[in-house]
């Protein structure tokens, strides 16, 4: 049933969203690499006044095995206030949780007990396959006319093309493939948009066989992973332009458009350059009537003793930074860049998006460094800051340490572990400090690995806005 007044977590503009109260809970995707126990959504207490602050206070096992939960999202968000199809009296209450490996889509209801979400619907892989022609669902975004779900693979064992499926807002049934004309697009990964400009953007990772058993060195050196981003007409569902970053720039993954609907730019992180193992962040922006990209951040690889490196990296004698996730604060001021290989989270002031200025850095984990968390200084950490989520007010940043099961095993072969850290942000001058009271890790996560975090009420990568 709908509400009488708009859901209080919906904000017309990013500047108003930035005044939202602090989240009390966080939801974290937790998966079992061995596929012998169910994956889960773990619930963290993020209320600093609570006795359970920084601990796992809720846990919902999914009904099957081997899903590999990864990214997930809300059924509805602030763009329900958008004027073309307004429906602001729905509730932000369901988490849409795809299994990246199983292609199952779970719907969890957080309303009856926010600490113990209930699985209320499971959509089998056959429905995604039959209705939309896709598999390996990934990014979830609440959209104006349905829920957008990107998917990496094709149906019935086909490698591709990957694309976007639309789920019904109300029933969550798969309504079909989104694309009316996909042009040259084949690889898929992330999706987001400039909603008021009728622009949708997608990025490229690889097909199922290119990722599911680990990164394939020959394909990487052969520059066969994705290296382009695509611009689409959001209203007509048509491909408009493919922008190639250059085939040495392998895997442009996370897309973070400016939240201000009047701005026409966004950031995309590139995992690795095969020329020097560096990572980079690029800005997309308008160039006349077309779209263009400009590299705005370059993060070099760090030389290392091959003895300290996993087999995959021994021949190179260096640690690649591996920018696997980025996140932009709701006020579009700070960009957070995860360097999962070197174990660093960087903060850049991107007030001038073409010229980012680094304002903060925190080291945790890393292939060679293994930096410990200040609250457990004797515990060398594996993995690094990976999925990064920023609170709506921009004051808190959460990072988790797993990338993707098979890839974790290659870069951290002695075990990636499981940890999640919270960093406090100096929103005036910039800068990041780990919160010593907030470090759920190890057995708190019951042997699962942790991936994306979603904050109660919304976060910097969950909502888009139609009003400036």
């Amino acid at each position, binding site marked *: 049933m*709908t*509400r*009488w007044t*708009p859901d209080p977590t919906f904000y017309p503009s990013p500047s108003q969203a930035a005044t939202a109260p602090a989240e009390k809970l966080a939801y974290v995707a937790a998966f079992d690499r061995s596929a012998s126990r169910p994956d889960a959504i773990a619930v963290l207490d993020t209320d600093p006044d609570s006795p359970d602050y920084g601990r796992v206070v809720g846990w919902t096992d999914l009904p099957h095995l081997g899903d590999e939960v990864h990214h997930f999202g809300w059924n509805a968000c602030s763009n329900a206030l958008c004027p*073309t*199809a307004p429906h602001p009296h729905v509730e932000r209450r369901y988490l849409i949780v795809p299994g990246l490996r199983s292609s199952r889509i779970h719907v969890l209801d957080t309303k009856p007990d926010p600490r113990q979400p209930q699985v209320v619907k499971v959509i089998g892989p056959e429905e995604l396959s039959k209705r939309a022609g896709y598999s390996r669902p990934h990014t979830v975004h609440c*959209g104006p006319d349905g829920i957008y779900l990107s998917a990496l693979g094709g149906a019935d064992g086909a490698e591709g093309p990957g694309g976007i499926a639309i789920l019904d807002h109300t029933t969550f049934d798969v309504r079909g493939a989104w694309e009316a004309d996909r042009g040259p697009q084949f690889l898929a990964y992330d999706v987001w948009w400039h909603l008021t400009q009728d622009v949708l953007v997608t990025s490229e990772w690889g097909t199922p066989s290119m990722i599911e058993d680990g990164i394939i060195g020959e394909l990487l050196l052969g520059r066969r992973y994705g290296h382009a981003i695509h611009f689409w007409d959001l209203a007509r569902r048509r491909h408009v332009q493919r922008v190639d970053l250059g085939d040495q720039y392998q895997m442009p993954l996370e897309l973070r458009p400016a939240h201000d609907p009047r701005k026409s730019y966004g950031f995309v992180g590139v995992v690795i350059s095969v020329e020097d193992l560096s990572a980079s962040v690029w800005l997309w922006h308008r160039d006349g009537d077309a779209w263009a990209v400009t590299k705005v951040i370059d993060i070099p690889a760090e030389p290392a003793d091959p003895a300290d490196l996993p087999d995959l990296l021994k021949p190179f004698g260096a640690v690649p930074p591996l920018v696997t996730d980025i996140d932009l604060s709701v006020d579009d001021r700070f960009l957070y860049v995860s360097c999962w290989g070197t174990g660093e989270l960087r903060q850049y002031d991107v007030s001038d998006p073409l010229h980012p200025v680094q304002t903060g850095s925190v080291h945790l984990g890393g292939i060679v460094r293994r930096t410990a968390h200040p609250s457990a200084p004797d515990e060398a950490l594996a993995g690094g800051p990976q999925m990064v989520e920023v609170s709506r007010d921009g004051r808190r940043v959460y990072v988790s340490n797993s990338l993707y099961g098979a890839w974790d095993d290659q870069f951290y072969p002695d075990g990636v572990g499981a940890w999640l850290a919270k960093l406090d942000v100096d929103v005036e001058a910039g800068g990041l400090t780990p919160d010593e009271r907030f470090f759920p890790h190890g057995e708190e996560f019951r042997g699962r690995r942790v991936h994306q975090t979603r904050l109660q009420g919304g976060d910097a990568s969950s909502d888009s806005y139609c009003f400036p």
Partner: protein
Amino acid sequence: MSVGTLATLAALGAFHGLNPAMGWLFAVARGLQERDRAALLGALPPIAAGHLASVAIVAALVTATRSVTASTALAVVGGVLLVGFGLWRLLSERHFRWAGMRLSSAQLAGWSFLMSSAHGAGLMLLPVLVAEPVSGGHSGHLAAAPVGALTGLAAAGVHTVAMLGTALVVAVLVYQVLGVGVLRRAWFNVDRLWAGVLVAAGLVTLIRA
């Protein structure tokens, strides 16, 4: 049309104009996006035109039919239709779907037409139109249909002027003074009220028939 009829038509127009889903919010969004009040003002006429078209079709159909048949059948059928549509609007959780925001004036009018039609804006005028006495002494003849239709068009016109006036005031107020933050507090569920009005209008029509 009597003063009472005109007032009712205008009141319904104001009610439609007040509903953010009927277009003033779209106009505000365009004004803010372009940083230009002219974009806001320019969006309202096409929105009103689309609304007018949607309402006029229903209104003209009703008054034309009425001038031909002048029976209670129209009121009964219309009333039942109205109650049914209202209940469906009340109970269905489906909402209007539309993805694009960069629309030409013609597309904006089309959007408004679809939006108004999907919400049953014209149907809401049914009790007013059915209650209005049939003009002239020629009722019952097919030749009376065009004249009857004119009554409907006039009714739709009055309604839309009130709708446009209200939308204009609200849009400018939100754009200049209140800001879109007011949406979070003031946007009560018009759709539910709207559905209730549809049902009530249907019942009134049926009772009078």
